[in-house]
């Protein structure tokens, strides 16, 4: 299991999307590292890649909209991390197309994607949750 409880940030929409992202990445890794002929696995690899390219964009946009809604002060820096990662995924996609979906290259992408995602959710995204909780506490004190 790629996902862990400690990765939850306490915001339902974001946590659900993270769960979906982790589930898809785990499936992707299982397919990429699975047994059998590469050409036979390639159809599933391509479909998962296409889904993730789209889903990452949707998730990042939703997460940034949430950050804006709570006036999260780290939004600009967080968006920069998202943009840089999206760019990297695009560069990989171009390389995949240029190399005929080379197995070694896709294995490398899967390894990087996994480690990047764990660190990003466990470190950067946790800060959003902490800020949201602080804001709630601060508003509660104001009301009292």
């Amino acid at each position, binding site marked *: 299991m*790629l996902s862990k409880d400690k990765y939850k940030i306490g915001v339902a929409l974001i946590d659900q999307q993270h769960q979906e992202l982790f589930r898809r990445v*785990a499936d992707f*890794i*299982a397919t990429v*590292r699975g047994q059998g002929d590469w050409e036979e696995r390639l159809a599933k690899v391509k479909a998962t890649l296409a889904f993730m390219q789209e889903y990452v964009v949707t998730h990042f946009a939703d997460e940034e909209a949430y950050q804006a809604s709570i006036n999260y002060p780290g939004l600009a820096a967080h968006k920069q991390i998202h943009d840089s990662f999206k760019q990297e995924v695009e560069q990989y996609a171009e390389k995949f197309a240029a190399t005929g979906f080379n197995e*070694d290259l896709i294995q490398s992408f*899967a*390894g990087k994607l*996994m*480690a990047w995602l764990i660190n990003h959710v466990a470190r950067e995204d946790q800060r959003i949750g902490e800020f949201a909780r602080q804001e709630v506490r601060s508003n509660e004190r104001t009301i009292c």
Partner: protein
Amino acid sequence: MKEQYVDSFLKAVQDVFALMLDLRAEKTNEENVDKFVTTDGANVTIGIRGDLSGTVLFTFPEKMALEMVKIMAGMEIDKLDNFVVSALSEVANIISGNALSNLNGYNYSCDLDPPQVVDAGKAIPAGKEAVRLPLKTGIGEFALNIALEEDDKTGK
């Protein structure tokens, strides 16, 4: 080598290992070296440029490399392939990025080059100021090798 450099990397290793792997990492020794020697497992080097310049080399023995990726992926990993090496390259990249943030706290501004994988059984000249830190964890011991020198122009 300045304690600030070593502490910045050591703290980064400990933070990232706790966060991503739920593991403690303890320094068991610190020795000055004139060359970096790679292991039979995954070896990742990253160049550093800016107020400080040099390289760091992470040497993960095979058994530990597989175990680290098993913890992250939550699945059995039995082969040191591109997936494993790439995942560990990214971990090394994340640690080095955190170390640079720590160094920034000492007013050193630096950038990283992309991680490069180095073959096993290599001895790489390390420059004047280089140390090797063996680090013990619950799944084995690996080494962090640091060669860092201050740019003369910074005057820090």
